[in-house]
């Protein structure tokens, strides 16, 4: 048996007793904190800590020409930087597949839930619309970056206000009181699987030996707006159902902290 299998088995043995490497239960998150407006340079920003994992997100706004097929809609872009500052695993350079996945999963949750009313981002039809860009930067990776990133992104959107826009120019130094046109508060929660054990909010060591994971983005009205399965082990429909129930529960729990 390979070392990785042995390590997996060891984690699993503890999970069977409903005990995690740090003493938590399988369905227990580490302490979650949200701090708003941590960057005065951004239109909106937030820092999220889940245990020792720390992520910050910042929102920047710009005015551009809309896409031809949606002339009266603004748009959203999500980018994630897995900074080499946050883990010896990450290297400087263009985003890795892992980083791109974080960005895209967070993006899909927000986009598909219709979290932002993009029609209200239109300034002049077919000419000018607001573009909202969310950048997620990791500060310390101790596992569960996707959930932390999703929460940070939504928190930053919640705090963001439009900069002053006059005579076709943005004055980034002057912020209005106008908040973004938010309609929904989607959050991604990832449920992990090792053997027949399901658990949330993994430590780095647990995440390293996981067999499969399912990220479920849910909204406050109980809808699922995005899914992403990861890992190379298949999931049964029954497991998927259990995972969705867990994700919905923790989605609601984190949302109440916003």
């Amino acid at each position, binding site marked *: 048996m390979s070392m990785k299998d042995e390590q997996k088995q060891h984690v699993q043995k503890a999970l069977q007793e409903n005990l995690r490497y740090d003493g938590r239960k399988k369905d227990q998150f580490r302490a979650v904190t949200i701090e708003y407006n941590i960057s005065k340079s951004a239109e909106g*920003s937030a820092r999220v800590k889940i245990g020792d994992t720390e992520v910050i997100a910042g929102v920047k706004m710009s005015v551009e020409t809309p896409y031809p097929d949606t002339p009266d809609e603004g748009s959203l872009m999500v980018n994630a930087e897995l900074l080499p*500052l946050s*883990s010896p695993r990450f290297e400087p350079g263009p985003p890795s597949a892992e980083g791109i996945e974080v960005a895209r999963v967070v993006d899909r949750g927000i986009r598909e839930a219709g979290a932002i009313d993009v029609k209200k981002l239109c300034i002049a039809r077919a000419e000018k619309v607001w573009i909202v860009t969310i950048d997620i930067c990791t*500060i310390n990776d*101790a596992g569960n970056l996707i959930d932390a990133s999703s929460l940070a992104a939504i928190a930053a959107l919640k705090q963001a206000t439009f900069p002053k826009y006059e005579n076709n120019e943005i004055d*980034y130094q002057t912020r209005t009181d106008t908040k973004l046109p938010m309609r929904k508060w989607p959050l991604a929660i990832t449920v992990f699987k090792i053997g027949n054990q399901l658990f949330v909010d993994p430590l780095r060591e647990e995440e390293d030996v996981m067999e499969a994971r399912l990220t479920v983005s849910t909204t406050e009205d109980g809808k699922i707006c995005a899914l992403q399965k990861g890992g190379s082990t298949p999931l049964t429909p029954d497991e998927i159902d259990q995972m969705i129930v867990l994700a919905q529960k923790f989605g609601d729990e984190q949302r109440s902290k916003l």
Partner: protein
Amino acid sequence: MTYKTRVDGRAFDETRPITAKVGVIKNAEGSAMFKIGQTTAYAAVYGPRELHPKFLQNPNTGLLRCNYNMMPFSGHGERVRPGQNRRAKEISMVTENALAPALDLKDYPNTVVDVFIELPQTDAGTRCAGICAASLALADAGFEMKDLVSSVAVGRVDERILADLNYDEEAYQCEKGVADIPVAMFPNTGEITLLQMDGDLSRQELQEALKLAKKVCQKIYEVQKQALKEKFLGESE
């Protein structure tokens, strides 16, 4: 019209409020946060670790490698595209040169010590804040160092020599113009390891500015020292 009072009401030799904290990133060997006004820098040290490509290895000593980066939302105006631009490359290099003279890596031949500097918010003086944070992170990581490195931008706005310019002062419109001088030094000896300037300046003005830089670096040093000691406070008996 001369520059009589500063845009934010500070005294001419006064810095913006400074806070520093050591050990803010658990994964790193050493780390620190240094905040001056609305410029915040994080620094994390990883290594010594194996240096690739191999031909860069030095059999006599370890190598210091710095990487300065502004987060995409940290700029004064529009979003900054992620990835290293020319400015970030240059600042990374001068940061390396500002810190390397303090550091003794002879015990770690063929290796590299990586320092990553990240800025979540900026209001001028970013390279200086980055150097202050990085110097703390290196000390926290337990490397042999001759001294800490303290850094501040001094300059001249119109006819006044002043410390720690913010963005509004860097961009101040006045007859004589603005000179901006980022300086880093060993606070215990006053030896200078970073010196850049843009604007125009007389020899006398530079002398005066450097004198001010030394005075201000002493104050920054006290904050740095305090931050390091705070992390290890529990260790003394």
